[in-house]
Each structure stands twice: as C-alpha cells, then as structure tokens.
C-alpha cells in the first residue's frame, strides 16, 4: 500500500527542518483533483511550526493553460518575500524524492481571507481605513520586482486578453448582449500595449490576501501571474464583484481609488487612471465569463455541485456592473 500523505510529509520535513520530530494536525483545506492545499504543524522541540503544503499530487503535473505552475509560484513568493512584500516564507520546494508530487511548503500566516469578515468584523475596524492605500503600496512593490530575477511567465496584452475572453464567451454559445457590448467597448477602447511591462499578480483581490488587525499580512495565489500592463492589477481589485456590498468603496469594499493610487504612487510609480478603468471593465467581464464557465463545468461534470450551478447565476451581477460602467444612467460613478 502507498504511504499516506501524512507519512510522506513527515519524511519530507525531516530532510530539511533540523530538529523536526514529525507532523501533526494535517488537514486538507481546498482545491480540486489537480491541486491541493494542506495545513499541518511541524512538530519541533522549540514549538510547533505552522505550515501549508500546496501541491499537484503525483500524476497531475501539467498546469492549466493560464496557470503559472507551482514551481513558478514558489519562486515568485520567494522573490516577493525577499523584497519585503507581505508574503509567506517558502520553506521547501518539493523534489521527486519527496514523492509528494510538485509544489512547495510554506509558513502558515495567521489572519483572515474571508471578505465579509474582513469588511464587517470588529477586529479589522482599525485596519480597514488604511487598507486601500496599503494595497496600492503592495502592488507597486510587486510591479517593481526585476523581471530578470523572475521565472518565465506568459506575456499578456490587452488585445490578447480581449481575444481570449471573446473565444471563451463564444464557446459558451449562449447570447448575452451585455457581454457583446462590453467586448465591443474593449475593442474600441484598447489603449494599446503598455509602455512599461512588469510582473502582474493577476488575481490580487479578497480571498488571496491574508488580513490581520494590523493590515495586509500576506499576498497569496500567484497562479495567474504574468508579464503585462501593471495597471491590470489596479483595475482588477476595483471590480465590483470584490466589494461585497460596499459598492461605494471601489477598492475591495475598503476604500477609494484615490487612496489606492496614492499608496501606489508613494512607492515612486505612476498610475494611469484611464488604463485602470479599462482593466476594471475587462475584469468585470472576465469574472462574468468565469461564472458562466462554472455553470458549464457543472453541466459537463465531474463536479456536479449546487455551488457551481448557482455561481452560473451570478454572471448577471457582472452584467449590471458592466452597464453601470458603460451606460450609467446618471453621470455619477461609484
């Protein structure tokens, strides 16, 4: 019989963590068949060390077409950590000898990722007014990472992204005139290639940020990282879907664009507000099409879950948000 994940983890940890006597409290957190996240404690005489395993199990090596791959993710986190960006510390990159598949082990960072808790709970009341500005500063540091020290990643442009979204939308084969309107607007308003190409996190929003009462503690999930227009990240975090009801606070329901931009520019980088707006429209459409994709996967299986089905019915949320962006009924914008 094959050794359990717990046994393999204990054996792996012993090879690089001096003094470790084993592991405890291993719990699988989330993910589908091709990618798993585990939380566990490294048992150590000086006190247990909280750890996270992120891996593709043996036999699930290939990343989906948009994904950077777990090796690249580990390297990005190491670079981010070294540059002083809030980030978990990567402790070990899996090797074939570990027999755990591909991936890495990182330190567990305490804090909250659930948006509604970050936006409502009393313990974050002190952090909330500072977060929009702080997140601007974090993004500026991400965009300042030197490409020569980063792994190979996809190079994306606005035109390429529009073409991908159009292809995904056409594959759904279900008419959504508001999506056509948005695609048309994006084609007509494409600002062209960015004069500066930087690392783009690609999914910088609630859920991928660990927040503590003191502010941002870690940036997670570099799966969609690529090289492209840095303004994409600023637009994506302003998408209304990440405001969770706080629609007058565009930056994740936390604060204003002005605060985000001020935090960004305080790090010596420039904001192009028109490009940010363009990417907000793109991001809203992208999330809408992703919701439709969930519905498709629900239909075709194997994940025939209610949750996926119901996410399909959230795509209309992005339609109203696209209309609010592109055909506002009052000249007042949130």
């Amino acid at each position, binding site marked *: 019989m094959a050794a359990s994940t717990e046994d393999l983890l204990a054996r792996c940890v012993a090879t690089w963590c001096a003094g470790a006597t084993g592991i405890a409290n291993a719990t699988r957190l989330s993910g589908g068949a091709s990618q798993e996240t585990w939380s566990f404690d490294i048992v150590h005489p000086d006190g247990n060390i909280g750890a996270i395993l992120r891996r593709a199990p043996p036999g699930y090596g290939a990343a989906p077409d948009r994904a950077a791959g777990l090796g690249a993710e580990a390297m990005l986190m190491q670079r981010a950590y070294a540059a002083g960006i809030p980030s978990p510390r990567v402790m070990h990159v899996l090797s074939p000898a570990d027999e755990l598949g591909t991936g890495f082990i990182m330190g567990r960072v305490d804090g909250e990722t659930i948006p509604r808790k970050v936006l409502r709970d009393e313990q974050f009341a002190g952090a909330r007014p500072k977060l929009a500005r702080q997140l601007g500063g974090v993004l500026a540091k991400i965009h300042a990472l030197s490409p020569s020290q980063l792994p190979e990643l996809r190079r994306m442009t606005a035109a390429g992204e529009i073409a991908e979204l159009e292809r995904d939308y056409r594959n759904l084969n279900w008419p959504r005139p508001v999506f056509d309107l948005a695609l048309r607007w994006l084609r007509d308003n494409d600002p062209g290639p960015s004069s500066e190409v930087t690392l783009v996190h690609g999914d910088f929003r609630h859920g991928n940020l660990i927040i503590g009462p003191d502010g941002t503690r870690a940036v997670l999930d570099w799966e969609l990282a690529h090289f492209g227009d840095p303004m994409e990240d600023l637009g994506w975090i302003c998408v209304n879907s990440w405001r969770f009801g706080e629609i007058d606070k565009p930056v994740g329901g936390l604060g204003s664009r002005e605060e985000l931009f001020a935090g960004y520019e305080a790090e010596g980088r420039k904001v192009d507000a028109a490009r940010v707006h363009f990417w907000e429209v793109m991001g809203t459409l992208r999330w809408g099409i992703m919701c439709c994709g969930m519905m498709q996967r629900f239909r075709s299986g194997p994940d025939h879950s209610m949750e996926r089905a119901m996410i399909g019915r959230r795509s*209309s949320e992005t339609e109203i*948000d696209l209309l*609010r962006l592109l055909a506002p009924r009052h000249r007042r914008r949130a």
Partner: protein
Amino acid sequence: MQDEPTPTELIHAVADFLRNDVMPAMSGHKAFKLRVAINALDLVTRQLTLEQNSDAAEHARLTQLLGKDGSLQELNRALAEGISKGEIGLQTSGIAEHLWQTTMDKLAVDQPNYASYRRELERGSSREPTS
C-alpha cells in the same frame, strides 16, 4: 391540466421547511451547503413567478428594436451579433433602455439583494422588475 398545488407553491413550502426546521439543526459545511440549496430553491420560485411577464416584455421590445420576429433566444442572438458587429450600439434608440430593463429583470430573479441592483432600483420606478 396538472392539479394544484402549483410548482411555485410546492417549492416555496419545501424551502420554508428547510429554512425554518432543518437549518437550525445544521452547522459547518453542511449548513453552508444547505444555505446554497435554499438559495437555489428561492431563485426557482422567483423565476417561476416573474419569468413569464419579463420574457413577454423582453420579446416585445426585441421584435420592435430588431424589426423581426423569432424565439427569445433567436432574437437575443441577433441582438448580440448586431452589437458585436457595431451595427447596434448605445447610440441606437431604445438599446440602453432595453439592456437595462432586461438586466434588471435577470437580477430580480438571480440576486435581488445584490447591492448594485438595490442601488439601481432606488433610482426610479421605471427600472422595477417587469410585473
């Protein structure tokens, strides 16, 4: 002709049972899944209640905008294609109003508590769900 109670009444009754009698006994992931299930049943109830009128109104608007008849899906395909080609746009008379009304009618079924929808409802009676 099928007999009473109607599907709407049955689903409504099941959702109320799950909400009032089963939910208090649930916790953790099962409670989360149950909440999703109840939301799904509530959505179906709203669709069964609202769809007929909103579809009829949408169909009437589309036949007038496009100057032709067809099924709701055919007409929506024609509109989507016209917008994609740039033959129809926000400058076309009646288009913005049509897209807004159609979208408001979708939200009334899908997510009536969505904040953007609540905000737009407050803007005026003309955007209320077709009833």
